[in-house]
């Protein structure tokens, strides 16, 4: 998470050289979504469009990243709160444009932040089937139902970047195990409703 720095707003004024409002919009979105490590390459791509030096492009991209991330972090949703962030002498029109762009994107950005937060491996899919065991080396004839449950688990998104590692785990449950599991899940559901009803 980046904190707003003093030089950031000065750097933001470079946006006045942008060719169009859409270009600014595009740049804002790219700067928010980019992790800090990828800001360098992003600045290089933005350079020609803005007709600025590499160093200035880097400062701008970094400032935009900090600003957008800061707004999402604080959970600011009102125009006044965002406008307050800018210093007194900041270019009026640019300030309004940036605020407008941020407000347009804030809820999508918030969802993006939540989706990429650290977590334990996540469940992405589950499938099941029920088999009847009819024979084995310990009993020649039987009719025992059993359940096979396949869970697709994805490792922490932040660690994998663009190549999420999904592993499949297949577990076998007997009827007794399933009953116990359902008991546990039922208790979770009851506690969740108790919390929701408070």
């Amino acid at each position, binding site marked *: 998470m980046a904190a707003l720095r003093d030089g950031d707003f000065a750097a933001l004024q470079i946006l006045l050289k942008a060719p169009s409002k859409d270009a600014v919009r595009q740049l804002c979105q790219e700067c928010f979504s980019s992790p800090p490590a990828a800001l360098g390459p992003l600045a290089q791509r933005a350079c020609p469009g803005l007709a600025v030096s590499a160093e200035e492009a880097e400062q701008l991209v970094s400032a935009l990243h900090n600003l957008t991330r800061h707004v999402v972090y604080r959970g600011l949703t009102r125009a006044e709160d965002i406008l307050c962030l800018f210093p007194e002498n900041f270019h009026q029109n640019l300030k309004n444009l940036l605020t407008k762009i941020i407000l347009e994107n804030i809820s999508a950005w918030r969802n993006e932040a939540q989706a990429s937060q650290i977590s334990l491996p996540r469940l992405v899919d589950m499938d099941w089937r*029920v088999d009847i065991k009819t024979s084995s080396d310990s009993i020649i004839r*039987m009719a025992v139902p059993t*359940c096979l449950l396949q869970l697709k688990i994805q490792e922490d998104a932040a660690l994998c970047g663009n190549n999420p590692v999904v592993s499949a*785990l297949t577990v076998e449950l007997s009827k007794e195990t*399933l009953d116990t*599991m359902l008991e546990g899940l039922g208790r979770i*559901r009851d506690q*969740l409703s108790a919390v929701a009803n408070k």
Partner: protein
Amino acid sequence: MGLLNFTREPVPEAVSGDMHNLNQLSAQQFSALTEVLFRFLTEPKEVERFLTQLSDFATMNKISLGPLKNIVKSILLVPNGALKRNLSSEQVRADFIALGLSEEKASYFAEQWKVNSPTLTRLAVGQTLMINQLIDMEWKFGVTAGSSELEKVGSIFLQLKLVVKKGSQLENVYVELTLPQFYSFLHEMERVKTSLESFS
């Protein structure tokens, strides 16, 4: 010897000799030995205890332990085969008689078999191969208060720890679910339960 119920293979030669020796035991002695045997069959992990009890039996009845162990090996052939083939107590009795055991003792053993077979069947089913058996499930749920990207979050998460038996080792698998995923998981598991119950 006619066709046996508990096995299709030829029985080792020593068995008829062992049955003959068994016939020499009194009814009381046979009953005590049968009790030791069934206690072992219903708790197959208690090998130490079984051997101790056999040894005590041998001492108390002035029988040498070696021959006694051979006799026990022969006797156990029948219940093991009977379990595999879901034999009735009449079939077990018929097999013992065919092997040379007296009618009285064969009937007694078959009675004990009838009493113990539900437990023994359940044990045998439990021994049937299970792939990645789910042993245990632990869970916790809570609220994400904040993160490095969002100062205030307030979303609910559910974490499950599944203990899975892979071969002879236990492996822990940790999974996190969102609330909608949890409800969908619960719904699916209830469907599985209905399906399993319709086949039981």
